[in-house]
């Protein structure tokens, strides 16, 4: 993969400063007749420590930024790295083909699977085509069609979740955005094949959950899953979207939070600093997580898969009797 210019995030600022300083010293030693190798090496070990401090202790807001990073690998980045023989299948057979969701059939370790994922763009042109990864009803109906097809041929279903949410638009409402999402939730509950839902970026509200009624829900370490965006929460709670950072902490939207609440089965580790630093290596982590889930779910009968999904979701909630 060609080396891209990486967009830096505010929490990485101290690292950028330090790296710049080291670079300047190096350049200086090359031109001047002074030996600064001791200083450089001391700064380098400081850099290493700082990297550990920053990347091993990422705050919720840091993770939100990583999850939204423009170079973060998307569904279509992962598919060729995870699967063989992928064939994309289009359309809901009712209205159109929503390119904010891609789906198709592929081979995973010798087993045919159906893969479905939200797809956002990486630049303006692609984002217009993909509607920023925010689906219309036809996207969800295409997903359901492909899930039913998977069930017919007894293929496991792998869903990759990566959306800010379902699209809030006039046409989406006219064509039944609510019904399309609701239908997916109910029909996914009854699927007789394994369903693995993996949050790879942002998991925004009902539009994310519509691919999320899985036997297993997994989250990448720096992904988020929430009922509302931190900005939205902040503007409702404190009438100030600028307090998104505070809201990101208060709303408990990170993978460790969801693991603790018993909503997800596992966290998939990320490359230090975020998946965008090494998508190929990141895909290996994803691949072994999918293998592990399939090993657990493949032996289960259709009925026990439905029962497992029932018990999983029935158990989510906090209240007293």
């Amino acid at each position, binding site marked *: 993969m060609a080396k891209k210019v990486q967009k830096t995030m505010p929490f990485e600022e101290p690292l950028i400063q330090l790296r710049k300083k080291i670079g300047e010293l190096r350049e200086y030693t090359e031109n001047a007749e002074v030996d600064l190798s001791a200083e450089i090496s001391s700064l380098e070990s400081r850099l290493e420590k700082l990297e550990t401090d920053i990347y091993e202790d990422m705050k919720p807001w840091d993770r939100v930024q990583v999850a939204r990073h423009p170079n973060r690998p998307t569904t279509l980045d992962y598919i060729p790295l995870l699967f063989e023989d992928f064939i994309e299948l289009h359309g809901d057979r009712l209205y159109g083909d929503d390119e904010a969701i891609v789906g198709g059939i592929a081979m995973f370790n010798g087993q045919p699977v159906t893969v479905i994922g939200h797809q956002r763009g990486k630049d303006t042109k692609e984002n217009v085509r993909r509607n920023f990864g925010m689906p219309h009803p036809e996207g969800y109906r295409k997903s359901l069609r492909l899930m039913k097809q998977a069930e017919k041929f007894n293929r496991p279903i792998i869903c990759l979740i990566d959306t800010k949410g*379902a*699209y*809030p*638009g*006039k046409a*989406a*409402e*006219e*064509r*039944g*955005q*609510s*019904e399309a*999402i*609701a*239908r997916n*939730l*109910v*029909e*996914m*509950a*009854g699927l007789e094949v394994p369903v693995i839902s993996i949050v790879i970026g942002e998991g925004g*509200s*009902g539009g994310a*959950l519509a691919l*999320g*009624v899985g036997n297993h829900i997994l989250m990448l370490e720096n992904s988020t*899953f*929430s*009922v*509302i965006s931190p900005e*939205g*929460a902040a*503007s*409702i*709670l404190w009438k100030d979207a600028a307090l998104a950072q505070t809201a990101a902490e*208060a*709303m*408990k*939207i990170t993978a460790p*939070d*969801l693991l603790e*609440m018993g*909503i997800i089965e596992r966290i998939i580790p990320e490359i230090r600093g975020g998946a965008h630093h090494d998508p190929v290596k990141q895909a290996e982590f994803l691949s072994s997580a999918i293998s592990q889930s399939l090993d657990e779910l493949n032996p289960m009968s259709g009925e026990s898969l439905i029962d497992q*999904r*029932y018990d999983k*979701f*029935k158990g*989510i*909630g*906090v*209240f*007293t*009797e």
Partner: protein
Amino acid sequence: MTIIRDIFKRNRERNDPTIPSKEAKDVPEGLMCKCPECKTIVLTKEMAKLQKVCPKCDHHCKMTAHERVDSLMDEGSFESIDDHLKSSNPLGFPGYTEKVEADSEKTGLNEAVLTGKGTINGQAVVAAIMDSHFRMGSMGSVVGEKITRAVEKATAEKLPFIIFTASGGARMQEGVLSLMQMAKTSVALKRHSNEGLLFISILTHPTTGGVSASFASVGDINIAEPKALIGFAGRRVIEQTVREKLPEDFQTAEFLLAHGQLDAVVHRHKMRDTLSTLIKLHTKGAVARG
């Protein structure tokens, strides 16, 4: 979710007539009430007899869950369940517990939905009735759990399940746990449906966000009350996104009907009879086939 504030701001003026608005100060509290739509003053007793439908303009005012039970079920037949469940404060939001307690005090409900079993014209049903006077009808863990248990009861007793929805969506103060209630209620409804049992969803004003995008929209039959606001995203959010003027009737029951999203819009005065007939038409073994 952002929709909640939106809706309730827009509809603050046409609220429950028993809550006196500013202009209604001169109206004796309790004895009289004012239609929030046409401002006609009506005796409260008279309004109750009319099931809170304005005699002049036909506006369907908001009902409490208990008022709905009275207007729907055979007298004395309704027995509520799960009134003992209590919301926690899983994210530790300041003031959340107090707000829930205050609304509980105000409405006499433990949460934003009343569930139980009763009869309609002698036919047994399990019902869930949401109440928008309780935290705007928003769905947190207890609302999700109560609806799920009600559906499970209907499945176990092989009864139809009826829900009256009235909700601004998921409850923000319970975070992603609220979102997951959409999935929880759905797995229960799937099991109910697989038993060949009837599910009727009646969408009342307002039904939006996560409630609209889950159980409210997947009845075998979806009915709405006239003029009810029903939608996924908030009008203001959509206007900001698409930058175009939305039609006046956007996201009303009539708009949804015209766009193929509802089976029928039914006047409140005909609701009981309509439901009774629908249940009768789904009675098993009335005529054996095959």
